[in-house]
């Protein structure tokens, strides 16, 4: 029997994460991550299977450490990135939240996401993801130790970034 209270707490946390991204509170979003957090979006191989060994295979993103995410935020907020200027608006839809385990490593949770992004030059972009989270409890709050996004779309229309998945 699933721990429904925990599932509800995790769901609430993921909703809050989505809301921070959609409202462009990227600083507050970064604060959800542990200092040693991993943010991972695997690529696919020519056989269409997701890449699973980041040390030996290519990924859309494999960011180890919060500083790598901060650099991403720095870039999109710098105004110097044409792809991020104007910054697309997003709506993150988070569904199918399940908690798979709660152990010494942390809480393993799953969610499906659909992220609709819109900006004037390119119009609408939709990216569908399956997200695997590892959450730690720190100071009575959840912190993201790892977030892995398996994208449904591997032929990319244009480009994407951390806030559009």
């Amino acid at each position: 029997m699933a721990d429904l209270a925990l599932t509800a707490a995790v769901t609430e946390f993921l909703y809050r994460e989505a809301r921070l991204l959609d409202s462009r509170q990227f600083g507050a979003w970064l604060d959800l991550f542990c200092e040693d957090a991993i943010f991972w979006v695997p690529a696919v191989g020519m056989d269409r299977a997701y890449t699973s060994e980041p040390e030996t295979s290519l990924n859309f993103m494999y960011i180890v450490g919060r500083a790598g995410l901060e650099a991403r935020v720095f870039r999109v907020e710098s105004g110097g990135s044409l792809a991020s200027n104007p910054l697309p608006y997003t709506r993150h839809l988070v569904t199918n939240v399940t908690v798979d385990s709660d152990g010494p490593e942390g809480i393993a949770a799953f969610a499906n996401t659909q992220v609709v992004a819109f900006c004037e030059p390119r119009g609408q972009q939709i990216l569908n993801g399956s997200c695997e989270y590892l959450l730690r409890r720190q100071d009575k709050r959840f912190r993201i130790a790892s977030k892995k996004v398996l994208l449904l779309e591997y032929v990319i229309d244009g480009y994407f970034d951390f806030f559009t998945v």
Partner: protein
Amino acid sequence: MNATTTLSNRRGFAGYIDDRPADRVFRVDRAIYNDPNILEAEYRNIFEANWVFLCHEAHVRNPGDYFATHIGRQPVFVVRKPDGTLACYLNACGHRGATLVTKRVGNAKEFICPYHGFCFDTAGKCTAASAAKTGWSEQHLDLAEFDLTPIARIDSYRELVFGSLSGAVPSLREHLGAATALIDIFVAPAPQELEIVAGFSIYETRCNWKIMHENGPDAYHAPVVHNNFAQAVSYREKREARAGVTRTDTGRLTGRIESASYDLGNGHTAFWHKRRDPEAFPIYAQRDELSKRFTPGQMEWIIGRGRHMTIFPNLLLNDLASTHLRTYRPLGVDRMETVIWCIAPVGEPKDMRAARLRKFEDFFLPSGMATPDDVAVAESAHKASFAFDSKWTNMGRGMDFKIDGPDAAARELGFTPQASSNSWDHEIAMQGVYRRWREMMERGEERLRG
């Protein structure tokens, strides 16, 4: 009728290129980016009339390995035959033309059409037709009627596989010409062969293919478009106190550095820039071993310089932020597909491989911190190509500094470009691309006229 059509009728394709070296003028009519008739002519006269890049031999290493791709509009697949040679066929069943190979890659002893079940071997021979006996009398059943159509030419250079739908082409080596020396220096340092690292990326861009092709030999844009990349990684690397091979060499993006660029002939281009931080690259760890195999001049090319080349019309190979193989094709006059791989030495130490991959992800992917800005600027240039009344895209930068033939660095490596230039941000190499474009388009139209 817009002005372009009139121009094309009056002066042929030469009218699209304003090429006056004595006046230091080189300009391209922006209509070449958005006229659907020009794309049709490019398919016919460029992509389907000469050598184009297909894949790397590592994609089809073992007998039966196949790789599906396109030559211009036409779907093809490359397959490794049991005798180890490569073949390439149009990817259409010899019976009713269904797509025969439906996956990008795979391995097969025979190919079975998903529509009516006709079978083909790796030599392209039709070996069986479904229910043959009830469909044809014995004297009229000739399976050879259904054989696959091979492309006219297939060959590889240093494991880069090229094909041509036309048989009336020079040898691949002749076609590559001066580019072979640069391909050699890309490949030769690897102790064994190169491999395609697992994982790849495809992205579609809303621009004419030539706008993205121009972005390759164009280093002039880098300090402008990618300044935000340099700042973002510098921030990260200060914050993490990164050392050695996990660092990023952003010197090329933030200040003037020694560099050169080349019009290699046949529309191929190259440039190099001096690396400010050669220790940030995996190959630096091999310098002692490499110095036994290469002269000091070659070592400067291998260790000291970031290198980049484009092979007209559809291959880009570089060792800049990381080692990168890219191919692209038009999907329409205003849409193109780009496919990219990380290419790396077989047997590379794990920490070096990981560093190479992270650099690749930082820069080259549609989810990286640089390529999205290239895409955005290419798409904006495509939109502005409809500004017919401003007409000309100017590619004259650096003409005052052009050297006919090789510079000292080219002589050192032993290649003879059409022209050299003492800066990577000159537009001399791009002029070679458009002269080749004009030559192929005019030659193609002459063939059509008979």
